[in-house]
């Protein structure tokens, strides 16, 4: 086992050290860039779609059943199946892949925005109403800022999920990203390439997790949370149903 591991470690180091792997359209910078672009666009669209809806529903304290339903079903959907569904239904272009990833990214953002706003302290909200603020002002100036940590936790979860699932887009020719390193590496029996690709995408995911975690900490009034620990999903612990 150890010589095998040693061989893989050395092989991967050599793969990274090879200049040819950093040039051209299959080079590391291009692939990382593609992956970041794909993930970034997806999360941006998901935020535009899910955040206003979640904030509104939380503010009105309505639609809770819908949100619970979405949260429960979302966890049960196989991401691999969804990606293939996009390909089979809409073809092999980036559009369907982005759409599929957006569908996966929406639930964490929606649920967290909803719960975050809904659970803002009643006294805080009443005080705001008491000051004569309109509904919109209450939402924008009081509820949303108070819900910010939870909102960011949702965005953080969605981002890591998208970075991970975007690797599966390797089955769609031409979409790019870091997935092809892994899939091609396994298909060509080129272990260093597969491991290198895996390291790159793992690094990207961890970077997203940690940096968004730092941002989340910044806006949290009192936070003991570690940077490296993903936030719990709503409904994870007993008694925390949305």
């Amino acid at each position, binding site marked *: 086992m150890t010589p095998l591991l040693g061989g893989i470690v050395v092989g991967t180091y050599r793969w990274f050290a090879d200049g040819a792997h950093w040039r051209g*359209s299959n080079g590391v910078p291009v692939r990382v860039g593609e992956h970041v672009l794909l993930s970034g666009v997806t999360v941006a669209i998901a935020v535009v779609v899910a955040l206003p809806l979640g904030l509104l529903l939380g503010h009105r304290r309505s639609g809770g059943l819908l949100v619970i339903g979405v949260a429960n079903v979302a966890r049960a959907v196989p991401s691999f199946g969804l990606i293939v569904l996009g*390909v089979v239904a809409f*073809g*092999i*272009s980036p559009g369907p892949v982005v759409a599929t990833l957006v569908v996966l990214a929406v639930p964490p953002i929606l649920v967290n925005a909803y719960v975050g706003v809904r659970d803002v302290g009643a006294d805080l909200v009443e005080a705001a109403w008491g000051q004569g603020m309109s509904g919109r002002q209450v939402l924008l100036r009081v509820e949303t800022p108070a819900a910010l940590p939870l909102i960011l936790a949702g965005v953080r979860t969605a981002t890591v999920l998208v970075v991970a699932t975007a690797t599966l887009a*390797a*089955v769609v*020719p*031409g979409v790019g990203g870091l997935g*092809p390193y892994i*899939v*091609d590496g*396994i*298909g*060509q*029996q*080129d272990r260093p390439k597969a491991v290198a690709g895996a390291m790159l995408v793992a690094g990207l995911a961890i970077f997203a997790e940690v940096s968004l975690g730092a941002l989340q900490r910044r806006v949290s009034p009192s936070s003991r949370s570690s940077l490296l620990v993903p936030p719990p999903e709503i409904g994870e612990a007993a008694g925390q149903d949305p």
Partner: protein
Amino acid sequence: MSSRHRSMTWFCALIVLTLTAAACGGGSDTEKAAGGTKILIGSFRFTESETLAQIYGGALKNAGADVGYRLGLGNREVVGPAIESGEIDLVPEYVGNYLAFLDKNQTNGLPLAEAVAKTKALAKAKRLTVGAASSAADGDVLAVTKELANSKGLTKISDLSKLDSVTLAGPTECETRQTCLLGLKTTYGLSNVTFLSTADDAGGPITKKTLTEGKAQVGRLFSSDPDLAKAGKFVVLEDDKSYQQAGNVIPVLRTDKATEALVKVLDKVSAALTNEKLLELNKKTDVDKEDPAAAAAEFIRANKL
């Protein structure tokens, strides 16, 4: 016992029960030989290979052998080591690509008899026996859409130099094979070729889509594909510099399982396979979406194997 204590006991019992059920219910990855020699047949991850594997397997079963299957393992980079290590015992191979796999320096196409002889010798060194080659062949071909062929006047592979840039669509292994991308650069001297990986899609619908949707100009397909027939949407480019090998079907078997009787059965199957019949089999599985198992069973019955 307090109710809480009882509940804990139930809970623990539930866990133990589930674990046991899971362990018992779980099948094993490899078949265990019941007593006689078990032949484990592998296949590549495309339908034709699965059909062929079950045709050879069904014939062997009719002859009294104990047959098991490990279908859809992957490409040759996975299947080759699998049969060499004994993970599988038999695989229906294709002469040309198999020879190129055994000898990476084999760059030009050889006449069939020579190719078979060379393959036999190289396989022997790995303790593998090859049966007789069938007349049925399925080789790698490079194809373009009819529209592209007509508009740019493409009839043979050398014509690709007429295009400013060429994107070749093929599965991951195509990128590193002489019989695929590499050969275009060396044998044909094409410098304008880039590669588009279709991951595990070996000459299948995704590769074809890259051609019809203009994401690639040239695709690596298989010669026995029903879509390449005269009425089809694609045109095969002639291999004018013979960088492809003849793709005749040839069974490869581990020597320690290769009894005379067994090899005889394999040769009988290989003789029954022809290009027309292979095309027909593919029509059934690819167009009519029949299961390879059903198509193989029909073939065995029809040819009395």
